[in-house]
């Protein structure tokens, strides 16, 4: 704090015209030629100069504040962990009652044959909501960082790279439909067999990337541009949030929905799990392809 006050006092004297070589704020400043200086801060109004000095002070404080924030978070998390039962204790409910309930009643209560999907998208769907928001935040951060970044090569060079290789094109022509179909299968059967929204979405994303590698961005851009990307991602996330945000108010307890659990083993069963898998899958597929497009050419 003292340093900041010092700096501000110096600035005031500087503004009043009392130049002193020992008081200069920046290296390279010469008091003999204050006009027409090459340094932009000489042409600025005093207020702007003051702001700049304050920003500099904050920049110096920033690492300490960040470390303090991290320490507070660590203490808070450790404090929360203290409430958990000790590791490996025989009498913990999570090792006995919860597991037994999931294994013995999971299929009946969620309607999902794949118990993993039943746990992550029905019993613990609230946690998955938080996870998907973490993913969305990461995707938004990448979007902010890379959107509009100059591509490594010019458009023409990119076109030349992606559309001239005969082997890649013919392989993609055969493989991409199978990959996309498999991805859709994995998503739609997430509650019946291994897989689910995330893995299926990743497979579809990989298929889209392969298609773009072979045929260029322009061909895929005819039906997946930035506008459709935004609509799909935001729509899916909104659907997920709306269908699970009641957990904020009733403590992650199960609520009856219009989607019935149905007969376990059928494709239209397991309540909300299938729609939620679809939402997660489309978000993940779009995000994977979006990352690739952003890295490759700086826009989606």
């Amino acid at each position, binding site marked *: 704090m003292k340093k900041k006050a010092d700096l501000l006092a110096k600035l005031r004297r500087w503004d009043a015209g009392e130049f002193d070589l020992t008081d200069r704020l920046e290296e390279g400043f010469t008091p003999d030629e204050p006009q027409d200086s090459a340094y932009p801060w000489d042409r600025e109004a005093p207020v702007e100069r003051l702001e700049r000095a304050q920003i500099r002070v904050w920049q110096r404080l920033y690492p300490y504040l960040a470390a303090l924030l991290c320490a507070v978070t660590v203490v808070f998390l450790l404090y929360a962990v203290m409430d958990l039962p000790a590791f490996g204790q025989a009498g913990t409910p999570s090792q006995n009652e919860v597991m037994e309930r999931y294994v013995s009643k999971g299929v009946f209560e969620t309607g999902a044959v794949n118990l993993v999907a039943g746990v992550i998208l029905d019993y613990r769907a609230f946690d998955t909501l938080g996870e998907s928001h973490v993913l969305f935040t990461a995707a938004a951060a990448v979007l902010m960082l890379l959107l509009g970044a100059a591509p*490594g090569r010019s458009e023409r060079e990119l076109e030349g790279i992606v559309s001239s290789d005969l082997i890649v094109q013919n392989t993609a022509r055969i493989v991409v439909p199978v990959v996309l179909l498999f991805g859709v299968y994995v998503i739609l059967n997430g509650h019946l067999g*291994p*897989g689910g929204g995330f*893995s299926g979405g*990743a497979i579809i994303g990989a298929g889209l990337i392969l298609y773009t590698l072979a045929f260029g961005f322009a061909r895929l851009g005819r039906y997946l541009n930035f506008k459709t990307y935004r609509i799909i991602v935001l729509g899916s996330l909104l659907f997920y949030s709306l269908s699970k945000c009641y957990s904020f108010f009733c403590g992650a307890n199960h609520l009856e929905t219009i989607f019935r659990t149905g007969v376990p083993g059928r494709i239209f069963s397991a309540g909300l799990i299938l729609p939620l898998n679809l939402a997660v899958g489309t978000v993940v597929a779009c995000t994977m392809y979006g990352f690739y497009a952003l*890295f490759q050419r700086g826009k989606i």
Partner: protein
Amino acid sequence: MSGLDLFALALLGLLLVTGVGACLSKNLLVTLIIFMAYSVIMSIIWAMLQAPDLAITEAAVGAGVSSILMFVTLRRLRDIKRRAEDEKEG
């Protein structure tokens, strides 16, 4: 010791080899390719551990998408380096 056990041991050994190799190789492109191999081996191990969900995800994300992203990043780094050299020469 059955054949499956031997197969699992061989996979684990390969996992070690690829993991250490990815760290030790000097060429970044070689590192990426070894890393892809690591992911493929890992996905087979997941399948043997009866976790097919993870096997699918590992194959799609570990060996597929993340490797592609790292390849693209590597190429952009090279482009930046090449451009800097061009500017230095004139």
